[in-house]
């Protein structure tokens, strides 16, 4: 992580960092290492940390929600960053690419992918996927340059591996119609009912006794 921060802080043009503590790997991470992670970021990149966002920390089950919230906040932060950028986008872009290439050589396979695309409206997108030393998560840093200025920087933890997001993908073929119940008495010739296990008297009595 320190190595990732070194790369990020050394990358010219990145004006701020956003920590998304609860996203992506939430199922694997408990509070303590998260706090440690925030501490490390503050130590190593404190001067860039005017926008700490601890999204999803208290809502680990809903990573998708946390991600959505984080994205909203990141967009806000991106707006705030615009004022700080003084150099022209073209310069930043060139320096960034150069810097990242150097860093890539230094850090071996730290940088997964550097991809530059130019849109019809002159918008430039620079996508950098970064594989952390843990190996599991990937952070995509996307920068949009419009009219020679950086208009948006979005660091997106790719939470595709999280349980919730995966469920959404897997559920693409959801039945759209609403399920309706029919009284068991109405249906003829049922051999058995498949459902959650009936509870025994002991369980019910114990719950009732509380």
């Amino acid at each position, binding site marked *: 992580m320190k190595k990732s921060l070194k790369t990020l802080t050394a990358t010219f043009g990145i004006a701020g960092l956003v920590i998304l503590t609860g996203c992506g790997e*939430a*199922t*694997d991470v408990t509070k303590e290492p998260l706090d440690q992670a925030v501490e490390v970021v503050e130590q190593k990149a404190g001067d860039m940390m005017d926008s700490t966002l601890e999204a999803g920390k208290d809502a*680990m*089950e*809903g990573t998708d929600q946390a991600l959505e919230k984080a994205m909203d906040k990141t967009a806000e932060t991106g707006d705030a960053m615009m004022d700080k950028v003084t150099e022209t986008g073209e310069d930043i872009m060139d320096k960034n690419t150069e810097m990242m290439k150097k860093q890539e050589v230094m850090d071996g396979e730290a940088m997964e992918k550097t991809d530059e695309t130019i849109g019809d409206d002159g918008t430039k997108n620079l996508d950098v996927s970064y594989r952390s030393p843990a190996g599991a998560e990937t952070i995509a840093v996307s920068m949009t340059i419009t009219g020679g200025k950086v208009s948006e920087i979005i660091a997106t933890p790719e939470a595709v591996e999280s*349980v*919730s997001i*995966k*469920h959404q*993908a*897997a*559920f693409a*073929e*959801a*039945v759209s*119609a*609403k*399920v*309706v*119940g*029919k*009284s*068991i008495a109405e*249906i003829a*010739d*049922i*051999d*058995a*009912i*498949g*459902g*959650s*296990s*009936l*509870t*025994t008297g*002991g*369980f019910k009595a*114990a*719950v009732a006794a*509380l």
Partner: protein
Amino acid sequence: MERRDYTTEATGTQWTISLWSKNLHEKDSQSIWESCVSMIDNFECNYSRFRKDSFLTSLVGRTGKVEVPKDMICMLQHYRKLYDASGELITPLGGQMISQMGYDASYTFQMKAVEEVPVFDTAVEIIDSKNIFLHEKVHFDFGALGKGYLIDLVMQKLRKQKDINRILINAGGDIAHWSESGEKARIGLENPDNTEEIIGMIELGSEALTSSATNKRRWGKSNEYHHIYNPKLKKNTTDIKASWVIHQKAAIADGIATSLFLISSEDLDSAFSFEYAVLTMNDELHVSGALQDTFFTQ
């Protein structure tokens, strides 16, 4: 063909076994049923974490090489596969955690401090078909697939009997069916929001259908806790209301039905071949191909 139904309460739920036969004498049928009951009792005696005298309870606190019944090795192997496929979320080592969450042997339903679940690889080693090595103290809990495994055992036993043409085992909603002549069993899928209703019908061949839902085994001040939990988050699952799974083996179907509360069906696709349906807390329904027309919809 005559159908006879037998019922008993065991493994924390109600078991009903239906036997179809052309010429099996009632007395023989009864004695076959009784041997099933003793098989179920024996299994519960070994693997119930609720019983102080169970073999499983006797393993608590032990370390080193331990000789265990063959069935325990088989269940551990099933778990091993699910453990890997589920990113370590389906574990046979969650006994202490579920107890600490209140679902303990005395049904105290009091939430206590919840400790980490041991890592399978470092805690338990399967040496051979009779022995395991416990590298640390563990609390086994075979709740995710134990009942399914027992259904398979009973089915195997019944299929060895002569003169039985069709078998339906219903262990409180987890079902296995076999028919010599390829008949199908008509199984209603319980509405988890209203147990007087069903929300679909399945024609079950010679296979197993298991289900998990969190509507019945609940506790806490406002019924906020239930028996399916994420061992890494140390919390109950929240996204899924109910799941149904069809597989040849009830043990696997049972394990997958629990898994679907924690991971997506895609994670299990490469490891197992199964059909499923999942109902989310938002009442969205997700079903695999063969079950597309199973549910009643508006």
